[in-house]
């Protein structure tokens, strides 16, 4: 099958450890919590992080009801990479959006199913959001939505998105906000999910530590004498340790190099960098206020997760959180007057800037300071996609939904991105749902594969088993249609027919009009999902295995 890619040269050997991506303290809600160990070697029964059961998503349009997803079920375990393959229009992206409830509400709606993320039903409350009334004489449906409920549910999803389930999208060039700089957007993600840890670090920092002078000189000497980057980085880390601030390490590293390169004396530069750690009273109060707000936000997230888990809703607790939040904001109002907001916020902005530089380092970007300062329109697609991956992973989510991240990029960049994702997966241990239509990519990246066709999962298997022994006729057709370089005279084969219209999909098994093995029963009933091997399930009447238990 796909040959191994050449040894990657993109990932420089002196890349720093990804500790800047990992949280230092045990984070709050929505993070992995336990140690990010390497992915399971075999089909060991690790904890299931995402359990999608019988997901149905319909789109209500002028032409009728598009049944985009009609009973999709799959599971993702901790740390594993699941690939999702299918043609264009089979519902892969819709699945990813449904999991985080990003389906744009008119015209789409999730009408059925359960999505359990770590035991919490993400689709809690969705049945109360809308009422359906079919219109006579056409295949249209009138949907009456309750905006209040829709809004409340969307607000609740804030607890899951980002910190629990991260997403990266298909078109990187339009995925970032064009008017904010890269560091601004990375900083936003950092503050949302790791703000408490960042502010704690800032408050704990010791800018007046007397040992700093010695370490500064050591750093300057190392850079001047042209020591290898590894050593310089280690010394910079020592600077960070001395000052109790990891972002100072990054800042010291880059500012020293820049100062020496432009011929200036680096020591005053380093001293000037310390200014942001020396917090005035106004700035300290601002930081404490923000810390309190973040803590309250986390409490709210816990309460939301609780609600999604078992449906209990503690009015009193919510009210108390809201009241405390209002009180904190109100009390912090004097800060706006006294310390004009930009002045109060400056240390936080600088801290997040250098933290985002550290993030970009972790993604092996060559000149992170420049990239952090630049705007999205100045960067190439591959670079932006890397930034998006950094942004998604900085929140340390349990699951990363990658919706065709490499489709819009050319092949060489694709190779770099895939290598990056593989490396990150090993180090950080996030489970991934990798959606693509490219089987070669799946072979590279995935451990298990789901094959989708017209809104239904037709086969699930470990990747080797799928490539060695595809069971479903559609998977067989897909694999057979890959051109073989070693058989140049063989005619290209394809699956006859075309993708069905999802407004009036075929009855029974949706693949039966194109299937070479179609039987009369295929037209009448939808085939159940049966287990045919170790972790290998298929939905086809050709196989008479045991019906899979949800």
């Amino acid at each position, binding site marked *: 099958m796909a040959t191994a890619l050449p040894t990657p040269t993109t990932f420089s050997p002196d890349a720093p450890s990804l500790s800047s991506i990992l949280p230092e303290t045990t984070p709050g809600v929505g993070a992995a919590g336990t140690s990010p160990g390497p992915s399971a070697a075999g089909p060991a029964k690790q904890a299931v992080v995402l359990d999608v059961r019988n997901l149905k998503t319909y789109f209500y349009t002028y032409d009728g009801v598009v049944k985009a997803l009609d009973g999709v079920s799959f599971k993702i375990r901790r740390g594993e990479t699941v690939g999702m393959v299918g043609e264009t229009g089979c519902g892969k992206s819709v699945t990813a959006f449904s999991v985080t409830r*990003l389906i744009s509400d008119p015209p789409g709606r999730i009408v059925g199913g359960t999505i359990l993320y770590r035991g919490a039903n993400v689709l809690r409350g969705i049945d109360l959001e809308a009422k359906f009334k079919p219109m006579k004489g056409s295949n249209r449906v009138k949907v009456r939505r309750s905006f209040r409920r829709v809004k409340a549910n969307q607000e609740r999803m804030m607890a899951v998105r*980002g910190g629990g389930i991260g997403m990266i999208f298909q078109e990187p060039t339009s*995925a970032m906000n*064009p008017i904010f700089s890269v560091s601004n957007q990375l900083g936003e993600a950092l503050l949302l999910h790791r703000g408490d840890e960042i502010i704690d670090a800032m408050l704990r920092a010791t800018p007046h530590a007397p040992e700093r002078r010695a370490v500064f000189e050591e750093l300057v000497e190392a850079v001047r004498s042209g020591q290898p980057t590894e050593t310089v980085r280690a010394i910079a880390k020592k600077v960070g340790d001395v000052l109790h601030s990891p972002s100072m390490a990054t800042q010291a590293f880059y500012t020293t190099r820049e100062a020496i390169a432009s011929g200036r004396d680096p020591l005053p530069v380093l001293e000037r960098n310390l200014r942001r750690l020396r917090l005035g009273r106004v700035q300290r109060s601002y930081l404490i206020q923000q810390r309190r707000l973040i803590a309250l936000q986390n409490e709210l997230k816990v309460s939301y997760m609780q609600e999604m888990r078992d449906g209990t809703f503690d009015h009193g607790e919510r009210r108390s959180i809201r009241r405390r939040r209002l009180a904190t904001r109100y009390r912090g109002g004097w800060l706006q007057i006294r310390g004009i907001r930009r002045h109060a916020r400056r240390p936080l902005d600088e801290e997040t800037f250098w933290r985002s530089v550290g993030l970009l380092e972790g993604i092996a970007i060559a000149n992170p300071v420049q990239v952090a300062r630049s705007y999205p329109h100045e960067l190439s697609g591959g670079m932006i996609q890397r930034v998006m991956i950094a942004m998604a992973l900085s929140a340390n989510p349990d699951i990363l939904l990658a919706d065709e991240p490499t489709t819009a990029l050319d092949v060489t960049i694709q190779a770099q991105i895939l290598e990056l994702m593989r490396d990150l997966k090993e180090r950080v241990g996030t489970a991934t749902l990798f959606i693509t239509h490219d089987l070669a990519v799946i072979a590279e990246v995935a451990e298990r594969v789901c094959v989708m066709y017209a809104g239904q999962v037709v086969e699930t298997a470990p990747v080797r088993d799928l490539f060695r022994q595809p069971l479903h006729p559609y998977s067989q057709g897909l694999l057979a249609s890959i051109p073989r370089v070693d058989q140049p005279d063989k005619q290209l084969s394809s699956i006859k027919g075309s993708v069905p219209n999802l407004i009036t999909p075929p009855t029974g098994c949706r693949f039966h009009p194109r299937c070479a093995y179609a039987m009369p029963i295929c037209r009448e009933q939808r085939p159940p999902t049966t287990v045919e091997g170790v972790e290998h399930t298929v939905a086809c009447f050709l196989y008479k295995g045991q019906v899979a238990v949800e």
Partner: protein
Amino acid sequence: MQMWVYIVRRTLLLIPIIIGVMTITFILISALPTGLRCVSYFPIPRSGDIGPTGPCPGNPTQSNCPNPWWTHCVSVLGLNNPVPLQWATYMYNSLTFNWGTVNLNSYLSTHTEYTFMGGEPVTSALAQVLPYTLELATISLLLILVVSIPLGNLSAANRNRPIDQASRVMSFSGYALAPFLLGSLLLMAFVILIGASNGWHSLTCAASPTYLEFYHSWPANQCFPGGNPPSWLANNIVSSPTGFPTVDAAYHGQWAIAADTLIRLILPAFVIAYGSIAGLLRYVRNSMLEVMNLDFVRTARAKGVPEAIVINRHAGRNSLNVTITVLGLTFATFISGFPVTETVFGLTGVGRLLALSINIPFDYGIVFGSVLLFTYLVVAANIIVDVLYAYLDPRVRLG
């Protein structure tokens, strides 16, 4: 650097526009009959003949000799010169602010609030009344921005809900209510309400909103806040430093008068703003709806950003760029509301001057001068809008 290039390029594009506008006014002025132009510049001769021919000096019964008044006028105004020369002269005069003089037969001197007479240069006449218009314009613009942008964002975020319907009604009625009708009705309503509640025996005070008018022709002291006019005002209006009534009153420490003037400007500002809010509100809403469908909004939501921040910060700032461009385009329509509103409320401004000058006697100096002035204002506004746009959008700022 890129920003300055962009700004300079946009400004250079405005030069042909200014030349074009002046050419159009030149064409229109040339279409005026010579008799009209002469009558407004030169005093009518004692004989009363204002035609090209008049009675001959030697033979009174004949009347086809050239009228000396006419020939004098034609030679001074250069009406027989070749057209390109006339055009060039007109251009030169316009650019050096030599815009002619007020019609000699103007009735404006009967209006006590105007201190200029026939024969004075048009520029000084316009300069006297321009500050009032500018004050009104400032308050109007503030009102427009403060109402239309937040309301447009809210409408887009809560599509088809009550607030969207309400803003829709407001924007539609803004198109449908002519400013003269709206202004008159509101003025009537407010005056009757205020008069009824204050028990004034006459509506003169409430209904004479003109700063200069009621200071010049005040019948009784009770119209002033506080009772008596301030001394600096009673002597000489022109001693005020800037010409802006509110600023001047504040400069002299008369806060009550300054506040009073501002309050009197709120209603006309609202009437002018109403029409512009109508257009802008719909546009803000539609551009917000477009922006909210873009990819980066979805990314922000997927990051876990709270919905309010997604709408206000991510989507709102982006739609602001487009809104500002449209604001520049609607400036021309915004200015159109001035003549009517100033006439309805009796404010001394350029618009009212224009309205008074187009009736007989047709004072073409003031008419064309004020049209040129308004056009320059529109052009200046467009430049400011371009600068703002360049500043706000990093794609332009950085290239």
